[in-house]
């Protein structure tokens, strides 16, 4: 699995999981950024031989904002709580 929801991943314990610290729904980066999509997929697949037992979660070294900013969390929270 390649996922963005670490708290959920910890609860459901997939056999092999790579965590990307991105907003849900943007696992492989921003729209049209093919290079970043390939980088994240490559990093996730490169973790495969490192898993030794079920339930391990390996954090990939990617962040949504280049400066490590977390303002995206407020936008995401508002989206998740918005009326449809």
């Amino acid at each position, binding site marked *: 699995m390649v996922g963005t929801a670490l708290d959920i991943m910890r609860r459901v314990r997939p056999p092999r999981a790579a965590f990307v610290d991105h907003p849900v729904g943007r696992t492989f980066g921003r729209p049209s950024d093919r290079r970043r999509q390939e980088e994240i997929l490559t990093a996730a697949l490169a973790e*495969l031989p490192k898993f030794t037992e079920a339930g391990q979660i390996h954090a990939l070294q990617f962040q949504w904002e280049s400066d490590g900013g977390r303002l995206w969390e407020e936008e995401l*929270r508002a989206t998740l709580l918005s009326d449809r």
Partner: protein
Amino acid sequence: MAFEYLPVMAQSAAPKPPRVLVAPTKPAWHSLNKTVNQLRVALLTSAALRLADQPPFTPREDLSYRLLSSDPAAGKIIIDHHSRIGAVPRQDPEIIFPRTALATLAIQGFIGSPSPVHVSFMGGVRRQREIENELAPAIARELKQADVDLALLVPY
């Protein structure tokens, strides 16, 4: 510290009780007996993706699945999932379904090959027993038929 989804999901669901998370009853671990560059890889997505000529998913408890060609030129991907987060991935479904990136990694020799088909289903379905006893085995049969070594799930 990673964003915590469970409290937000509980707040969003209120006054209904929060969603119950269910882990599989059977162990899913299987040892890796090939190197990454030998693997045939399939993508699994819970975003209810389909091609335009395939029948739509039906929110919210649809237990069907769609097989999507791994050819990036196979046609426009439509997102049927009802999630509020859909606006951005609808601009480019590859950010949740990296079909083109996987094909590129195969050309580069990083993986063996993409599976001829990837698999899409509806996430957030609450019929856990049917998922485990019907949907998951049906998908597993499809993957076995396609001689897939690795199924890579990207949750939505």
